[in-house]
């Protein structure tokens, strides 16, 4: 897929949703990945997991529905869907760590060509660290999708040969969805370019020493 303009977050969320197979069990990370839920239709029949202890999470609660005992991992009040199930933290993270989720969608500071993920810590040594479920999510699904902007505000590419930020997980990311393209990663470090948005293959390769393979015409 090729588009002449970069895509916005909602369009990207739609692309991610399109790539989730019907009947999947999915965890959507906090932030940009949450947008994906807007594009999951009934036909998708996707069951959402929230790591604080629930399968079958519904949409965000409306004001009259707010229940402090029913929240998502971002501590936002949510609803439950028919066929939901509650469980405790050890059981919830067993679902993730055990590889039972089909897809997990996460944000990132950086992703390396071999799928290393950096999304929990900027590396600033005076920052107060907080990790939450980030490292469990990173290794917690059959396929881990990342959604992020391809470039930092300073224009540095965030898909890198080797991450410079502290890692969240090693070799765990399958696919990266960005405003400028979609990338399929592999253990070998060769990156398949599935889509480019407002960026040519040549422009991409000029910005990185990663070995890209052009698969945009597939």
């Amino acid at each position: 897929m090729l588009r002449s303009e970069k895509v916005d977050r909602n369009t990207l969320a739609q692309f991610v949703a399109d790539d989730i197979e019907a009947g999947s069990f999915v965890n959507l990370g906090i932030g940009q990945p949450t947008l994906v839920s807007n594009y999951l239709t009934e036909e998708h029949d996707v069951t959402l997991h929230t790591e604080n202890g629930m399968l079958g999470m519904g949409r965000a609660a409306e004001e009259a529905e707010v229940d402090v005992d029913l929240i998502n991992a971002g501590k936002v009040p949510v609803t439950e869907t028919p066929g939901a199930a509650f469980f405790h933290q050890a059981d919830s993270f067993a679902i993730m760590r055990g590889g039972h989720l089909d897809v997990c969608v996460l944000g990132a500071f950086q992703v390396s060509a071999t799928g290393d993920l950096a999304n929990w810590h900027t590396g600033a040594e005076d920052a107060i660290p907080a990790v939450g479920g980030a490292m469990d999510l990173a290794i917690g699904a059959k396929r881990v999708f990342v959604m992020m902007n391809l470039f930092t505000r300073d224009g540095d590419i965030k898909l890198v040969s080797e991450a410079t930020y502290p890692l969240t997980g090693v070799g765990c990311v399958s696919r990266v969805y960005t405003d400028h393209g979609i990338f399929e990663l592999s253990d070998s470090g060769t990156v398949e370019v599935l889509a480019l948005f407002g960026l040519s293959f040549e422009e991409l390769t000029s910005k990185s020493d990663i070995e890209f393979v052009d698969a945009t015409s597939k």
Partner: protein
Amino acid sequence: MTKIVDTAADAVANISDGSTVLMGGFGDAGQPMELIEALLESGAKDLTVVNNNAGQADAGLALLIKERRVNKIICSFPRQSDSWHFDEAYRAGEIELELVPQGNLAERLRAAGAGIGAFFTPTGYGTRLAEGKEVREINGRNYVLEYPIHGDVALIKAFQADEKGNLVYRKTARNFGPVMATAAKQTIVQVEEILPTGSLDPENIVTPSIYTDVMVPIETQSTELAARERAQGAK
């Protein structure tokens, strides 16, 4: 055998200085706020606290930290928009932080309760949170060795109990309660309602009575919310 007491103060009365206190809750859901406030009142100090977070705003755990009653916190997500008391204590070097990925936190508590000496987890491998820890490749996957977290006391919030001490929880407020109940020498529970023994279906018990030491009935918003839900279901 489970003891039922009348007040949160009675429930936490024998928590001594230097205790490791496991505190249930993920954000406000399942947080045993009244027990934590009673612990604050009790004056117990030099505590090690295990909780997912490091206190929010000006209540509960945040106040324990503000008053420098917590020497060390083991948690997964201390930094929040309203964790100012933790932030200040941490920057002042007045609280020790052990940062643990949330799933490893849950599993280490579960291991403590289940008599597991240590376990190899994939979570955190290759990150700075695994630095200095034993690692091993098993069947082509890399793991970090993690150890149990035992508590002297667990403070948790349940929804309903029977007089024997069997517990059920409400929705995502279940979170750390069931694993912490197994991991502490003494488990203290604030519960919305204590029913006669035999009222809870044996199939649906989440925490069996063997893990419950002290219970205090305290009605919170959860009771209202459950009533609202029942009313809606009856429509």
